C-alpha cells in the first residue's frame, strides 16, 4: 500500500480543582506539555498521536460547577464553560477523596467532551490515567488499526476490527420485516413512529459524519436459509451459532439492492418465524440461548428473531394479528447500529463510568471518536486510490488523461494534504471535511470511464498483428545465423586436424 504518515493532534485541557494538584508538578500552573505516542500499523503507514496538554487550575465558575452533588450535574454545569470544538478534550481533575465519583470509579466520562478524573497521587499516575481516558474518548491504537484494517497484517487484527463499516459519504439504513408465513401471521409494525422516536436522534447527530437515509419494507414469504433444529426439552426451535452465516444469503436476494444510490446499505431484519417453526431461539457458541434473540453480521447489518406468542386457545382463527413491540426491537437494532459504527461501549476499563447519551443517542465524544477513525481511513483510502491510479498510468504509456480527470487528481492531492495539515493542527472538523472532499475527488478520477484500461490496445496484440511480417523476415536471418555458427565451429575444428 501507499505510504501514509499522519500525525493526530488532540488539544487537551487538564483542569485541576483545588486540592487535586499533585505535589510533583515540574512547573507552577499553568503550563503546557506534549505527549507523543506512536501507533504502528505497518512499515509504510505510521500514525503518531500527539496530546497537547494545557495544565491549569480551575476558575471560579468551574469550581462552583464541580461543587455539584453528582457527576451528572457537574457535567451539565461544566458544559457551557469548555471548549466545544470537535476533537478537543477537557479533563477536570478532582481530589482523590472527592465524592463526585462513586466508590470504585476513577473516571467519569460525560455526555460532551469532558471527563472527571480522580487525581492519582503523582503526576505520572495521573498522566497514565489521562492517556487512558483520551484513548476512550478520541482514538486508541486498536480503533486506528480497525480504520486501517486493509493495511494491517492479518494476524494482528482483533476479531472485531473488520466488523466496522467502511467510511463512506453516506449510508442507507433499511429495516425489513420478514414475514415468511402471512397465512398465519398478520404482522404490523409502527416503523415510522419507531424511526422518528429512536433512530432519528442518533442519525441527526451522525449527520456530521455522513448522509443517512432510512427506509423500511415488509417482505412476505422470505425464509431463512437454514432449517432450525427442534429441541424437545424446551419444545422450541434452535438456530445454532455456526449455522448463522448461512441464514443471510437467501434472504438477501429478496432485500432488493438500492439501485438508486451508491452508498453502502445497512440492513436490519426483523424475522417473525413461521408458525411451524416457532418459537425460534438463537444459540450462542456455548449452546446457551441469546438473550436478545439477535445477531449481527459485520459490515452488513443485523437480524433479530421476533417470536409470536402462541394463541391462548388452539382454535384461534388464523391469521393471528401481531403488533410488534418496537421499543424492544429498536433497542437491539440501535445497539447493533452502534456496534457496526465501532461505538460499542463494551471495551471500557471497569473503573470508568460512561454517562448514557440520553435522548440524543450519541455522546459528543463518541462522534469525535468516529470522526478521528473516519478521517484517518479516508486519508488512507485516498492514498491507495491515487497510488493505484498512478500504477495504472505507468502500465499504459499512451493513456489519455482528460483535463477534468487531472483536475480531480490535483484537487484530491490538495485536499488530502490539507487534511493531514489540519490533523496536525488539531482541527478535527476541518480535517474530516477535507478528507471527505479528497475521497470524492479521487474516486471520481479513478472511476472516470475514460480511464478504463480495456479501452487501450495492449502492446502484445500489436505484435501479434505484425507476426506475418516478422516471421518470414526472421527465417533467413535465423538460417544465416545457424550457418555462421556451423561455419565457425568447422573453422575451429580444422586447425586441430592440421596438428
Amino acid at each position, binding site marked *: 500500500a501507499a505510504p501514509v504518515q499522519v500525525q493526530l493532534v488532540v488539544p487537551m485541557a487538564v483542569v485541576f480543582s483545588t486540592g487535586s494538584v499533585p505535589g510533583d508538578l515540574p512547573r507552577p500552573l499553568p503550563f503546557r506539555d506534549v505527549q507523543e505516542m506512536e501507533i504502528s500499523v505497518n512499515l509504510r503507514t505510521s500514525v503518531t498521536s500527539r496530546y497537547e496538554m494545557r495544565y491549569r487550575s480551575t476558575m471560579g465558575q468551574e469550581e462552583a460547577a464541580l461543587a455539584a452533588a453528582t457527576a451528572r450535574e457537574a457535567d451539565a454545569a461544566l458544559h457551557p464553560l469548555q471548549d466545544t470544538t470537535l476533537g478537543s478534550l477537557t479533563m477536570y481533575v478532582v481530589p482523590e477523596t472527592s465524592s463526585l465519583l462513586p466508590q470504585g470509579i476513577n473516571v467519569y466520562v460525560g455526555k460532551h467532551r469532558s471527563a472527571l478524573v480522580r487525581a492519582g497521587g503523582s503526576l505520572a499516575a495521573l498522566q497514565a490515567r489521562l492517556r487512558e481516558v483520551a484513548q476512550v474518548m478520541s482514538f486508541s491504537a486498536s480503533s486506528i488499526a480497525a480504520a486501517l484494517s486493509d493495511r494491517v497484517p492479518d494476524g494482528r487484527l482483533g*476479531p472485531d476490527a473488520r466488523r466496522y463499516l467502511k467510511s463512506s459519504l453516506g449510508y442507507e439504513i*433499511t429495516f425489513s420485516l420478514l414475514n415468511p408465513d*402471512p397465512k398465519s401471521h398478520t404482522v*404490523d*409494525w*409502527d416503523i*415510522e413512529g*419507531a*424511526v422518528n*422516536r*429512536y433512530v432519528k436522534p442518533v442519525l441527526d447527530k451522525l449527520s456530521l459524519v455522513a448522509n443517512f437515509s*432510512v*427506509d*423500511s*419494507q*415488509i417482505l*412476505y*414469504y422470505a425464509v431463512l436459509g437454514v432449517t432450525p433444529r427442534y429441541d424437545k426439552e424446551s419444545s422450541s426451535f434452535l438456530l445454532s*451459532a455456526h449455522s448463522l*452465516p448461512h441464514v*443471510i*444469503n437467501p434472504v*438477501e436476494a429478496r432485500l*432488493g439492492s*438500492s*439501485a*438508486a*444510490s451508491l452508498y453502502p446499505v445497512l440492513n436490519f431484519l426483523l424475522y417473525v418465524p413461521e408458525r411451524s417453526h416457532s418459537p425460534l431461539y438463537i444459540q*450462542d457458541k456455548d449452546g446457551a440461548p*441469546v*438473550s*436478545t434473540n*439477535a*445477531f*449481527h453480521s*459485520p459490515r*452488513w447489518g*443485523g437480524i433479530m428473531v421476533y417470536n409470536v406468542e402462541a394463541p391462548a386457545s388452539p382454535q384461534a382463527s388464523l391469521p393471528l*394479528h401481531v403488533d410488534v*413491540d418496537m*421499543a424492544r426491537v*429498536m433497542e*437491539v437494532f*440501535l*445497539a*447493533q447500529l*452502534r*456496534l457496526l459504527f465501532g461505538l460499542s461501549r463494551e471495551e471500557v476499563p471497569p473503573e470508568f463510568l460512561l454517562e*448514557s447519551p440520553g*435522548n440524543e*443517542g450519541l455522546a459528543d465524544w463518541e462522534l469525535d471518536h468516529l470522526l478521528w477513525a473516519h478521517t484517518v481511513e479516508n486519508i488512507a483510502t485516498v492514498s491507495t486510490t491515487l497510488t493505484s491510479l498512478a500504477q495504472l498510468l505507468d502500465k499504459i504509456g499512451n493513456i489519455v488523461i482528460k483535463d477534468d480527470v487531472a483536475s480531480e487528481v490535483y484537487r484530491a492531492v490538495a485536499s488530502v494534504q490539507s487534511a493531514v495539515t489540519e490533523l496536525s493542527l488539531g482541527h478535527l472538523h476541518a480535517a474530516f471535511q477535507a478528507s471527505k472532499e479528497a475521497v470524492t475527488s479521487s474516486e471520481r478520477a479513478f472511476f472516470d470511464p475514460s480511464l478504463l484500461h480495456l479501452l487501450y490496445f495492449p502492446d502484445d496484440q500489436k505484435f501479434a498483428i*505484425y507476426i*506475418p*511480417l516478422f*516471421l*518470414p*523476415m526472421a527465417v*533467413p*536471418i535465423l538460417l*544465416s545465423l545457424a550457418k555462421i555458427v556451423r561455419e565457425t565451429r568447422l573453422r575451429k575444428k580444422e586447425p586441430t586436424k592440421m596438428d
Partner: protein
Amino acid sequence: GGMAAAVLLLLLLAAAGPGPGRAEAGRERRDALREELLLTPLPTGDVAATFQFRTRWDADLQRGAVSHYRLFPKALGRLVAALGVRELHLALTQGFWRTRYWGQPPLQAPAGAELWVWFQPTVTDVDKAWKELSNILSGIFCASLNFIDSTNTVIPTASFKPLGLANGTDHHLLRYAVLPREVVCTENLTPWKKLLPCGSKAGLAVLLKAERLFHSSYHSQAVHIRPICRDASCLAVSWELRQTLTVVFDFFSSGQGKKDWSLFKMFSRTLTDTCPLASQSKVYVDISPKNKEKELLEVSPPPTSVHEAVVQGDKKTYAVYDLLSPSLFNTSRSLNVQLKWKRPQDSSEMPIPTLHAQRYVGGYGLQTGEICTLIYNTHPYRAFPVILLETVPWYLRLYVHTLTIITKGKENKPSYIHYQPAQDRTRPHLLEMLIQLPANSVTKITIQFERALLKWTEYPPDPNHGFYVGSSVLSALVPSVIAMKDMDVEQSPLFTSLFPSSDGSSYFVRLYTEPLLVNLPTPDFSMPYNVICLTCTVVAVCYGSFYNLLTRTFHVEEPSRGGLAKRLANVIRKLRGVPPL
C-alpha cells in the same frame, strides 16, 4: 454476498427512550393488491393468458417523505421518488402479437423492450433523469435498457398521453424509446416476479413457471406505474403499480392436435392457494359466443359467476372464478380450469379486428429502400382518425418528399404532421401523423430512405443479420359497435381499466406493427487484417531475397555427379538393392 462471520450480539443497551404507544389494532390498510388472470381462446385455436397484478398505494410517493413500504416494491418506489417520475411504462416482449388473426389484444407491446416515461414538471434536466432511469431499470430487470441513449430516444408529441392523473401534458417531459433487438428471457422474468408481494409462492403467480412461459409464441411482461385518483372526488393521489404479463400458447406446439386447454396443460401447474395479501384474486375466461349463436366453449369446473361487459367495442361474456370465495377450494384442493370446444370452429367465423396494420421494407439493392405501412379500417360505415408514430434510426435517411399516403387510389392528406429529422449519430427520425381512415379502406403509407454507411466501429456484432427498425405505433379511438356503459374503475376487471375510455361511443386502441429488419451495406471486417497479412508477406519475401543476395557468398560449382536421369536411376537401383552406377 457471502457474509462469513456472524458475531453474536449479547449486548443490550438502554439507550432507547420510552416505549411506543401500542399501534392501533386493525389499522386501516393504505395499500391493496388485486390479481387477475384472463384466459382468452384465440380464433386460431391458440390461447392467450393475461396476468395482471395491481398494487395500489394511498400515499404520495413524490413527497419523498414516504419511505416505509409494505406491498409496493421498495426498489421501484425509490426510483419514482428519486427521479421525479410521473408515469412509467416498461414492456419487455418476445414475439409479435398478430392482431389480424388473434384480434385486439388487451395490452400489446412491441417486440423487444419499450420504455416510455413522463417526468414531473419539477425535473430540470429530463435527459439526465431519463438516462439515469434507464440505467437503473436495466439493473433491476436485467435488461439492456442501458443501451437507450439519444440515438433511439424520441419525444412524441401526440401518440403517448399520460394514462394516469396528469395536470399538464407538456410533451417535453416525455421520453420514449424502443430497443427492438432486446431478447427477453428468464433473467427478466425473475426480477419481475420478485416485485410481487407474494413472489411466486402463492396466488396466481404460482403459474408463472419460466419453462412454460417462454415455450410460447408470444410473451410480454410489463410494468406500469402511474398516479391515479384516490376516490371519485379525486382530491388525493394514489399510486398504482400494474404488473402485467401476456403469453400466447401455441396449440400446434402443444402437440396434441386438440384445441382443448387447461391450466395444467398451459402452465404445468394448477392453482392451490391464494395469496393472503390479495384483496381480490380472480380468473376470467372469455366464453363469449361468436355470431350470436350458441356458445362454443365449455368450461369446467363450473364458474363462481358470469360477468358480462363491453370490452373494446364488443360484448363479452366471462366465466369468473373467485379464488377468495371459500366455496371454490372446498370441493377440490386445486383449481384446474379446463376449456373444451363444443364443436370445431371454421375459419369463416374468424372476426377481423376493426383496426389492424402491416409493415414491410420494399426496394432492392443496398442503397435505397422503402418503408410501406398498410393500415386497415374494416369498420363497415365509420371513418376514424389514427395517429401513426414512426421512429427510424438515423442510418436510414428518410426522404420526406417521397412520403405518400394513398387510400382507395386517392391521396390522403394527413391533418397533422410532426417531423423531426435525424442527426447523424445523435438523434433518430421521428414522424408523427394524424391520418383519417375512411370506412372499409386500406391506407398505404410509403416513404423512401437511403442506407447510410457506418463507421466500422459502429457495427454491432453479426452485422449481416441486419439492423432492426422499431415497430411503429398506431393510436386510435376506434368507434364502438355497441355503446359502452361508464364503469366504476375500482369494480371492473383490471384488463378493462388501464386505458381510460373517453366516452361510450369509442374505445382506445394502441397497436404496434412488425419491427423491420433492414440490411445495411456491410464491409468485410477481416479486410484490414488481410491487407496487413498480404503486404507483410510481400515485404517479407522481398526482404528475404535481398537479404540472401547481400549476405550469400557465391562459388563456382563443381561439375555435378550426373544429371537428373542418373540420380533417379540410382534411387531405383538403391530400392532394388543393386549397387549404384
